[in-house]
């Protein structure tokens, strides 16, 4: 068994905690499973597994209006499911959101169906002017925390993209 110096899931979790994230909506990805266990067992975080990413955008917006710091965990395949909500809810009103996205479909991807959205993820985020950050595990805690600060300061969603290499600890 290979022991990584920095567990990628733990680094993301610690970044969320440092940012004060206390509300999470999620649609799972196999690469998010450890992070979802950490979040699910944290009594300070309200966690809702939702049915669709777009629903999660709405739930997180409501939670933020009620004073919570909200994050949406999802796979990049779900980005296409929530573009309208990101634009006509979060960006229209100025609502912050931390998006933790497992970015599938890149180098080493075993599932062919992940490839199209894998390629389109960054262009889609760029097209709707959503800042995206791609940390390595060693920088993930800091980057996740900064992503929330940026979202809160600007009143808009910010995406942290975590690809297959990231989850392998590289």
């Amino acid at each position, binding site marked *: 068994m290979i022991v990584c110096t920095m567990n990628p899931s733990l680094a993301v979790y610690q970044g969320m905690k440092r940012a004060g994230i206390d*509300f999470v909506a999620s649609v799972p990805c196999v690469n998010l499973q450890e992070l979802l266990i950490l979040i699910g067992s944290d009594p300070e975080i309200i966690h809702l597994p939702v049915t669709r990413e777009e629903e999660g955008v709405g739930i997180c917006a409501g939670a933020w209006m009620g*004073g919570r710091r909200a994050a949406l965990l999802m796979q990049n395949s779900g980005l296409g499911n929530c573009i309208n909500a990101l634009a*006509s809810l979060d960006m229209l*009103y*100025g609502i912050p959101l931390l998006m933790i996205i497992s970015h599938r479909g890149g180098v080493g991807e075993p599932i062919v169906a992940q490839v199209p959205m894998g390629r389109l993820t960054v262009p889609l985020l760029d097209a709707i002017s959503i800042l995206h950050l791609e940390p390595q595990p060693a920088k993930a805690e800091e980057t996740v925390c900064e992503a929330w600060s940026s979202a809160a300061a600007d009143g808009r969603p910010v995406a942290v993209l975590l690809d297959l290499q990231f989850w392998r600890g590289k």
Partner: protein
Amino acid sequence: MKRIEAIALAAEAAQAQSALLISNIGYPSRELFSVRDRPENFYMLGSMGLASSIGLGLALARPERKVMVLDGDGSVLMNLGTLASIANYAPENFKLVILDNCCYGSTGSQPTCTSLGTDLYALARAAGIEKVVQVDRAEELAMALTEECTVIAAKVEEGNAAVPIISLSPEEILERFKRCAQPAHLSGKSRL
């Protein structure tokens, strides 16, 4: 009952209960704005389908505040997963009022599937929501609004009232709503 009558009853109940009120896209928000504007009203201008989701997140964030959502048949059909989420996670301070006029009322009254027999009351029950009430008349709605129930499925007539567009910017809607919706210790801080 006309939709604007149903909205007036819901708005009156929301005010009496000091409830935060999330209102659906299109004419329903305009009708609410014209019958009873309050800072505690959030007028959802885009993101069709997400009024109930916004309300659910808010109700979980502020369990001590009542949260009411005015939604429509077309919007609930667009986000049917919300009924499953509400069934499993909605706290007792959450109430969803579905105003079912069997059509997309803000876009020219094109029929929705509820006009052909799809039953939102039954869908809510089948999703696992225990406290669901179905109403047709204004008196029944007024009663249900004061009862402990999670979802009210209310049949309303097709047609929009002649009301103007909302004279508030999205930023103004959010800013004044957030002051009412956030806990007091956060209300002085902007966006944090």
